[in-house]
């Protein structure tokens, strides 16, 4: 029988939730790394028993943990993230230049083919790669050469939070940074170009259509259509049909086009999901109604998915890495909230149930699917 495993990172530890393909009964293990912030956990597509976890806190800094037995046991691996060369400076909140300083790992993205190769997106924004199972890390410095001096932190820090590997082209990687924008390499990470044409940030930037500086919250891609990208920006939901060379807005009839995560249905490349949030000043659902919005048209036409979700007095947030999809025949959708709930839908979002209600604030959710 097929099984699913959710890797849930929270403000106070990691939790692993497992179920069969019905996704009705769940086993919960944790907290792992109790008391630490777990910004992200992710399993290797090449070896699902291999899981990487980013463990950090303000006192003791960054630790990377690795499990080779599906999360039963863990070992700390390398945590030395040294920027290549002289780190230089970037824009600060007040418009002055500020030194690049490593703070934490936001995203871990294992290689699609090699369990020992894993990418780490960090704050202050940069991309690192390990080819020895996380023991040592080296920066891909070409990314920060893409006008890094003009990048600036968003409210959550200047974080590289999204890494997308293209299964059809091993040389191509997409990343997204708050607040710098989206970037693409076509040569395995040596050189990078900003891919922000069409983004409009008139409320946040002096030049609304600047080449870099946009607060991109999340991007998503379906592996069968690597030329098509979807983006949840600070404001605006965007779509690109040319590998990010240009973007157009697809916010359509959303009640708010502010939000954090965006995801693509596993079997329907034109079906996408967002969770609208009222505004950048009020990080909770509009009208206190927790609604996932689904578009089956790749944007512009959206329907509210509400069955099983609280439709009153709900004031949680759903962070950028806290929405994920499984790959079972009936596609499962999962998201975690800052209120500690993890909701699951086993029917593409038509109906929802909480798996667990009272975890610490959820920072990230990833899914592994097993047959």
């Amino acid at each position: 029988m097929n099984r699913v495993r959710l890797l849930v990172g929270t403000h106070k530890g990691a939790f692993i939730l497992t179920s069969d393909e019905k996704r009705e009964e769940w086993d919960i293990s944790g907290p792992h790394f109790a008391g630490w912030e777990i910004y992200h956990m992710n399993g290797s597509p090449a070896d699902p028993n291999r899981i990487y976890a980013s463990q950090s806190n303000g006192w003791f800094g960054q630790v990377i943990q690795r499990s080779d037995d599906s999360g039963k046991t863990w070992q700390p691996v390398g945590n030395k993230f040294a920027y290549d060369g002289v780190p230089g400076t970037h824009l600060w909140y007040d418009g002055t230049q500020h030194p690049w300083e490593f703070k934490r790992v936001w995203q871990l993205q294992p290689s699609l083919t090699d369990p020992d190769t894993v990418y780490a997106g960090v704050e202050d924004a940069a991309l690192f790669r390990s080819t020895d199972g996380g023991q040592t890390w080296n920066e891909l410095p070409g990314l920060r050469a893409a006008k890094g001096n003009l990048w600036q932190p968003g409210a959550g820090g200047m974080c590289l939070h999204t890494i997308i590997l293209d299964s059809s082209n091993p040389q191509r990687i997409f990343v997204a940074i708050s607040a710098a924008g989206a970037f693409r390499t076509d040569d395995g990470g040596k050189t990078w170009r900003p891919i922000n044409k069409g983004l409009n940030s008139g409320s946040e930037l002096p030049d609304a259509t600047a080449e870099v500086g946009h607060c991109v919250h999340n991007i998503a891609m379906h592996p069968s259509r690597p030329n098509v990208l979807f983006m949840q920006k600070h404001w605006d939901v965007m779509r690109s049909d040319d590998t990010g060379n240009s973007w157009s807005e697809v916010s359509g009839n959303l009640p708010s086009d502010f939000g954090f995560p965006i995801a693509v249905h596993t079997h329907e490349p034109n079906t996408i999901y967002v969770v609208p949030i009222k505004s950048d000043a009020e990080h909770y659902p509009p009208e206190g109604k927790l609604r996932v919005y689904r578009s089956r048209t790749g944007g512009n036409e959206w329907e509210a998915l509400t069955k099983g979700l609280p439709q009153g007095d709900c004031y949680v947030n759903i962070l950028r890495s806290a929405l994920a999809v499984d790959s079972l025949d009936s596609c499962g959708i999962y998201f975690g909230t800052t209120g500690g709930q993890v909701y699951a839908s086993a029917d593409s979002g038509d109906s929802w149930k909480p798996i667990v209600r009272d975890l610490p604030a959820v920072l990230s959710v990833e899914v592994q699917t097993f047959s």
Partner: protein
Amino acid sequence: MIRVALPQHLRTLAQVSKEVELQIEEPMTLGSVLDALEIQYPMLRGTIRDHITKQRRPFIRFFACGEDWSLESPDFPLTDAVITGREPFRIVGAMAGG
């Protein structure tokens, strides 16, 4: 034998249940205790002081013999009480919170 008391999170990370004991060579300084600790427990590298600069992390404090050694240099000589193990060298997470 030098006794080092770690905060809870670092005891968990190092997989030790109580104080750790270190044998160090001359000169016996604050820096040499940290060097020996990181050699014996490499998973603690980067959690107490920076990998490269060796600067103490901002929310880490060093206490011993009822004194605050947090601002002392790495060359600061250990006291006899710490060298003989009569008093522990305490690595403490700074108070921050409610």
